[in-house]
């Protein structure tokens, strides 16, 4: 398996998955089906996460293809720029979906919030449209038979969208413009880390049986702060990645870190979307969580510390993945 394989495997998730999620979301308005809407929001969050390794594997595939004869660097750049724009829009759609899920948590009849529903609708429509373009521009790289027009030239709507797409090299240079900007990104990444681990840590430690004087339900008020920490780190992490794409892409610690982040979210999904949350929600001071809830809490803590560990080892494990 190489990066091109991985990219071909993953790229279907944000494109096809986005269309399915949007379809479910739109269908949920027929008869105001809250369950269907919830499913579509969960899918948006999952796809926003899966879009990350899809993007990173694309940079790896680019590295593999660069030396191939007949491959146009301009077409690869156009695809990468389109992917960057689509990725950021998809992350916003995922974040909006997560906020909406959080607000409706535990209620079978969610309150109507036309503003947030409209925002999700706009960003999911944009995401699907942009992701389809990412797919098309990606296909153009290897398939001259489907290309419209010559090279990377754009006409009509594509030309309009292209105006908003960053130039990959320009974006990279912007991240490296000054060591102070880079230091600022890294500083925020560590502040986000402290916010995230502190808030998530207290809830998980309580479930494991520490800090037992605390009731569990109010600790959930910390989760939006944890998500804010994650959001800061996702954004600053993406900026750092775009600043030094080659440095991160060919690094085994980086990929294991991304895997650990995806597993942490899987853990969170098991926690909130199965019966686990129900079993601990009403635990009062001094009460013990069931064994499975403890297992989930322990796994979450382990995975978050694994994320920190793997992040720390990115530097010494640089260049540990070689390409042909």
């Amino acid at each position, binding site marked *: 398996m190489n990066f091109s394989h991985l990219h071909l495997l993953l790229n279907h998730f944000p494109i096809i998955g986005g269309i399915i999620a949007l379809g479910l979301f739109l269908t949920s308005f027929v008869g105001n089906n809250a369950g269907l809407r919830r499913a579509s929001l969960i899918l948006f969050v999952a796809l926003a996460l899966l879009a990350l390794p899809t993007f990173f594997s694309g940079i790896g595939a680019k590295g593999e293809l660069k030396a191939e004869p007949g491959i146009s660097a301009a077409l690869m750049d156009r695809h990468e720029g389109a992917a960057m724009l689509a990725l950021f829009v998809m992350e916003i759609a995922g974040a909006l979906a997560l906020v909406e899920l959080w607000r409706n948590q535990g209620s079978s009849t969610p309150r109507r919030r036309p503003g947030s529903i409209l925002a999700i609708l706009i960003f999911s429509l944009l995401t699907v449209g942009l992701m389809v373009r990412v797919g098309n521009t990606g296909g153009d790289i290897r398939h001259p038979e489907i290309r419209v027009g010559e090279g990377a030239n754009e006409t009509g709507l594509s030309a309009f969208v292209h105006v908003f797409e960053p130039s990959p090299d320009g974006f990279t240079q912007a991240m490296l413009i000054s*060591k*102070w900007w*880079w*230091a600022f990104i*890294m*500083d925020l990444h*560590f*502040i986000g*880390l*402290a*916010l*995230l*681990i*502190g*808030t998530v*840590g*207290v809830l998980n*430690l309580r479930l494991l049986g*520490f*800090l037992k*004087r*605390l*009731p569990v*339900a*109010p*600790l959930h*008020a*910390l989760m939006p*702060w944890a998500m804010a920490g994650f959001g800061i780190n996702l954004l600053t992490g993406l900026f750092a990645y775009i600043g030094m794409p080659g440095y991160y892409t060919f690094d085994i610690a980086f990929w294991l870190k991304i895997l650990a982040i995806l597993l942490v979210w899987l853990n969170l999904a098991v926690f909130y979307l199965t019966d686990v949350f129900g079993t601990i929600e009403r635990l009062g*001071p001094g009460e013990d969580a069931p064994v499975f809830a403890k297992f989930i809490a322990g796994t979450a803590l382990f995975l978050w*510390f694994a994320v*920190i*560990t793997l992040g*720390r*080892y990115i*530097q*010494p494990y640089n260049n540990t993945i070689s390409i042909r």
Partner: protein
Amino acid sequence: MAPPLFLQSIEDSGLSTWLRESESPFAFYFVLLFHTFGLALLVGANTVVDLRLLGYVGEIPLAPLKGLFRIMWLGFAINACSGALLLLAYPTKALTNPFFYVKLAIIGFAVRVMVMIKDRVFGDPSLDESSMMKRGAGLAKWSICLWIGAITAGRLLAYTYKYLVYPS
């Protein structure tokens, strides 16, 4: 002006050289990892107490958060030890950089504020929650600012040093 010679002597010691030059994953980066773990525990636990004192997560009962001070001290101990080892690995880099002293000073103030919060807010069991918040809100603001300052000064050490090792 060359840095003081004792810095070179420290760098030439066996442990300092091993920490800096060994390719073992348990050398420099292992220490740096624990420094990050300590940061997460120390600043993370402080953040939760500060947020609560400022009224942001008002649902959480305040008094039981006293248990978090043990986590803060654990984080502080990890970082004092790992910090000493990092200093041993790169003494010239740290001690010739003004930001290193700024970082230590900020941490000193931040720990002082942490102790004040523990004594004044959590040390008197007769206080009700609103009196605890009244006493703690100002300190919590200082705490957040100082910990952000400590992290920032620490991050800047990676970008502002004059010498990585003693100049030859």
